[in-house]
């Protein structure tokens, strides 16, 4: 499915990452695999450092910290926020919505539209789509899109499939109307028949958490995880990305009438360096145009790896003139979504530590 938008743009990006840093080398003794194989995994996948929250820290803690930072520095005026969209898979509560929690903690007033969206690694594009839709309303002039997860709290330390790549982070993206007659193209697809490729089986209403769902099990691959833990079918996800994402981007660019070479940067979700580089190989895009260095330094924080890729690689450039960027997110659902837009003249593009 395709959506197009006119006269909308991103005007600022801030990421909040926990100061708490973990290293692959320190943690590989937890895994039930020979050390040499784990070192090989580190080298191939590009695992090294990652940032995760301390016990008890929630998405709203990181989001409130980041928004307060922007208020304190005059980069965002609280009265100007008309909508707060939070995209997360790790809300503070089942209810109320965590966007309302953030609104209440910051005292943002009642004249605001708050909404939680349950999406994962495609959540930056999905969140932008929602922000652009809201901006069609006259009463909405500024939307704050918050992407964030603290899913390191829901992975088994004995699951080498997923533990070494998990990172936590929140990003805050300011979305407004554009004074220029800009055009944004997006394309996305969903497939709920493959929903079990990325899932936390227990803890919802389908299978409430009990002492049994907390028991670690070996499902036959030497990894130990409980039904309360996030699980990922790594090879199925790899296949999904290699098959679906190049086609999605091809269709997006064809629909927009833009050639692959005309795109300045491809900013893709980063599950690990390996998958991003394989995607670049398949699409015949030079690595310099498709950054893949987020996971080795911060871990995979879901949707937030897209803004992190901008901050780590393009912060200087994006505070100047426009670049033509293609965004792509893919993951839980399954969901895959891409967007082609001009990005630049950002008022801020930086990351801060959550102490």
């Amino acid at each position, binding site marked *: 499915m395709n959506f197009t938008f006119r006269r909308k743009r991103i005007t600022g990006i801030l990421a909040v990452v926990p100061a708490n840093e973990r290293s692959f080398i320190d943690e590989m003794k937890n895994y039930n*695999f*020979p050390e040499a*194989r784990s070192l*090989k*995994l580190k080298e*191939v*996948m590009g695992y090294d450092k990652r940032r995760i929250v301390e016990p008890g820290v929630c998405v709203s803690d990181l989001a409130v910290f980041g928004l307060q930072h922007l208020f304190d520095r005059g980069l965002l005026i609280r009265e100007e926020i008309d909508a707060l969209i939070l995209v997360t898979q790790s809300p503070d509560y089942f209810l109320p919505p965590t966007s309302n929690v953030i609104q209440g903690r910051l005292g943002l007033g009642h004249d605001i539209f708050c909404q939680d969206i349950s999406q994962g690694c495609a959540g930056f594009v999905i969140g932008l789509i929602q922000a652009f839709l809201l901006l069609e309303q006259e009463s909405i002039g500024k939307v704050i899109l918050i992407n964030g997860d603290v899913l390191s709290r829901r992975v088994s330390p004995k699951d*080498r*499939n997923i533990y070494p790549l998990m990172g936590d982070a929140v990003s805050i993206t300011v979305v407004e109307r554009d004074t220029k007659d800009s055009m944004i193209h997006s394309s996305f697809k969903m497939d709920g028949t493959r929903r079990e490729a990325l899932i936390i089986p227990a803890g919802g209403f389908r299978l409430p958490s009990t002492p049994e769902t907390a028991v670690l099990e070996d499902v036959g*691959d*030497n*990894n130990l995880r409980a039904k309360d833990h996030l699980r990922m*079918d*790594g*090879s*199925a996800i*790899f*296949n999904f990305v*290699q*098959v679906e994402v190049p086609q999605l981007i091809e269709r997006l660019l064809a629909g927009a009438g833009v050639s692959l070479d005309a795109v300045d940067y491809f900013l893709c979700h980063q599950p690990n360096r*390996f998958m991003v580089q*394989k995607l670049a*190989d*398949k699409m015949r895009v030079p690595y310099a145009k498709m950054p893949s260095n987020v996971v080795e330094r911060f871990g995979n924080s879901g949707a937030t790896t897209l803004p992190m890729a901008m901050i780590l690689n393009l912060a200087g450039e994006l505070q100047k003139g426009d670049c033509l960027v293609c965004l792509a997110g893919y993951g839980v659902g399954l969901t895959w979504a891409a967007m082609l837009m001009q990005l630049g003249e950002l008022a801020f593009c930086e990351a801060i530590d959550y102490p």
Partner: protein
Amino acid sequence: MPHAMNDFLKKIADILEMDIVEEQDDLKGFPQWDSLAVLSVIAMLDANYGVNLHAAEFQQVNTVGDLWALVQSKKQL
């Protein structure tokens, strides 16, 4: 032995960090056969043979030769 087969065996040996592997070798018998090896094989088949194998399809594969046969059958589709 045809050249294409030799080349395939060499690629599998590289992934499994072995000097040599043979058609009749049991893939799951190699100590290096883990999730990383599965992923590396899937990526290698995609890049070199244009074949996308699903993890479930690995269930029916026991030997290196079985994998080669599966790749050949998928290439003909």
